[in-house]
């Protein structure tokens, strides 16, 4: 179609190199710090997955979910408890956790998604706080503040995962699954309906989009991805505790997608890749007292991004789906309908 664009070519080469580097990382001899680095990257990729999940709600439907960590926590505890009590395989647990997350997404979403943006944000926030409270207090279920230590690691074909690089490849694999799902969604009828809702709810309604149905679906899918991330987390960290699922996590994940670009998949991933290792760098560079306040940086990033570049590093507008949407708009205006 268009002539070969040198800038595009350079971008693609860059991205391919990056991907190659990421995939081959465990084989690069980095001496004794390699496990530490792998752990950081595993964390970054886990957050990529979480961010992709969260991205669906504000990114694709324009609503702000402040309670995302609730689903993360539900997934983690589902995974941990099922493993501890029933010794299920990770491959059974992942879909179960996803389903549980989706269930809660529907339960929470149905009554709340008809609210306006502000109220919705607050209610989701209240939800995640209640989840933490339940996790902390229902000792018979979750052992409360004593946490769940000693969660068995997952095993693949009989081999129990022990090394960091094994978990690394596992999370990469999960990322691929989630990426596939999300990109397909972006391009699907579901995705286009979501974008329509994001652009203008009322116009979308007039076009016959059943708002509640699509919103709840988005919310449920977002929740299930969050829960899946949690399921992995429990069986990687091998110890979970209610305090790991507080509101800060929701803010952190929100920061990743705001920084990277709300609605844009590439942006979300880039956001995670930059900001999560940033935390470790801060730990090394800052004295401990300042490191404890590192969320200051994340708060600052949120404010700064909204002020200077609210569309994020890789804006949604550059993504394929956005281009498809614009095409539709142009066609719409050509036929005389008002472009929204």
């Amino acid at each position, binding site marked *: 179609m268009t002539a070969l664009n040198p800038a595009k070519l350079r971008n693609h080469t860059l991205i391919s190199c990056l991907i190659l580097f990421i995939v081959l990382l465990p084989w690069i001899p*980095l*001496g*004794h*710090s390699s*496990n*530490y680095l792998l*752990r950081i990257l595993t964390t970054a990729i886990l957050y990529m997955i979480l961010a992709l999940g969260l991205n669906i709600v504000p990114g694709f439907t324009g609503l702000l979910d402040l309670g995302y960590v609730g689903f993360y926590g539900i997934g983690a505890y589902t995974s941990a408890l099922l493993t501890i009590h029933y010794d299920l395989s990770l491959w059974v647990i992942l879909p179960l956790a996803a389903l549980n997350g989706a269930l809660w997404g529907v339960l929470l979403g149905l009554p709340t998604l008809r609210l306006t943006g502000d109220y919705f944000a607050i209610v989701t926030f209240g939800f995640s706080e209640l989840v933490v409270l339940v996790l*902390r*207090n229902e000792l018979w279920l979750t052992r*409360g*503040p*004593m*946490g769940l*230590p*000693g969660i068995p690691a997952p095993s693949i074909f009989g081999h129990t995962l*022990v090394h*960091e690089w094994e978990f690394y490849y596992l999370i990469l694999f999960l990322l691929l699954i989630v990426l596939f799902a999300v990109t397909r969604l972006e391009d699907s009828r579901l995705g286009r309906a979501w974008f329509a809702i994001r652009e203008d709810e009322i116009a979308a309604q007039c076009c016959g989009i059943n708002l509640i149905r699509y919103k709840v679906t988005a919310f449920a899918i977002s929740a299930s991805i969050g829960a899946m991330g949690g399921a992995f987390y429990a069986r990687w*960290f*091998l*110890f979970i*505790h209610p*305090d*790991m699922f507080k509101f800060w996590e929701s803010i952190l994940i929100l920061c990743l997608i705001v920084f990277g670009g709300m609605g844009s998949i590439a942006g979300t991933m880039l956001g995670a890749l930059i900001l999560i290792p940033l935390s470790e760098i801060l730990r*090394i560079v800052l004295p*401990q*007292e300042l490191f*404890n306040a590192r969320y200051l940086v994340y708060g600052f990033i949120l404010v700064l991004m909204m002020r200077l570049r609210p569309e994020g590093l890789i804006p949604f507008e550059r993504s394929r789906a956005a281009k498809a949407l614009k095409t539709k708009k142009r066609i719409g205006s050509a036929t005389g309908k008002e472009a929204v």
Partner: protein
Amino acid sequence: MKKLGLFLVMWMMFIGSASAEVIKIPVAGAFTGPLASFGEGIKNAALLKAEEINAAGGIHGKKVVIVLEDDLCDPREAATIATKLANDPDISIVIGHLCSSSSLAALPIYKGARIPAISPASTNVNLGKMSPYYFRDVYRDDFQGLFLAKYAKEARGLKKVAIFYEMNDYSMGLMLAFEEKAKKLGIRIIGKEAYTADTTDFKPQLTKFKMMKPDAIFIPGYAPQGTLIVSQAKDLGIKNTIFFGADGLDDDLMVKNPDAEGLFVTTPFLPDKAGPRAAGFIKAYREKYGKDPNWFAANTYDALGMAVAAIEAVGQDRDKIRNYLASINSKETAYKGVTGSTYFDENGDCLKDAFVKEIREGKWVSSEKQLQ
């Protein structure tokens, strides 16, 4: 010292070569954050002990370097630190962690990497059992709770006790142990209320207690909340009630609070009841830091002493050190340090004596009545 440690770790990370002329021993605990005052004793004692060892020539000529690892008593930080340490081939033993929840999080990682750890402060009941690589030179919460119940009954004659505990491993473990023994001894538990680490308003529950008129209120929690509880109790007009707690209340915050007058706690270490070996330690600590060592400091001093003895005897092999520590298992083979004789049982736990001290006019004094 910390900056030096930081620099060494960084250097190690980026060059990837093993440094040869020093022996690094990490000390993990909360050195900043709300529980930092507990970590202070640990830090001070570790640095003091290292200084003394280096002054005496180090371990076979190599200097001991203390690397402080701050886990903020947060299980996630603890796990991150544990991974870092476990992957560092120069580290063969860890002194830590401070809080039981941190120890629980770090434990599987140390176990996987077969690196031994001695905790000077984690009292949770399960730790020793969960790993052959985890030792501690502080007593367990079930022992502490038991002791407190006996002391409450026999030395103080308390009959009606209310318990105000925090929702965490430490506090709940202690509470359960106390309750069980107290019931057997005939002490009535007239009320139990819970709070979380970020609670600051204790008045509703204290009001409930006030109406029940307890002889004593047991606070198996940490000092930041303990100090608020006693003050708010005073505000509510609660009188004729003794407060008591355990090692978690052993902190300046309590002692400096005039409303805590008469409060007593169990402690593994009392400077005036400690043996002659302790006198030198107490004097050196006072000279260097201007205050008396608390039990965190004393336990850390001994834990480090044991670690150094192990390295001296068998070198820097992780498994060999672990086995050496496990061989300290009887009165004869015990490590004789400032906290008395320390030896481990088959789980890596140790049973030490407990003492009682109380607050009189802004200072800790040993209680007249002790249980021995």
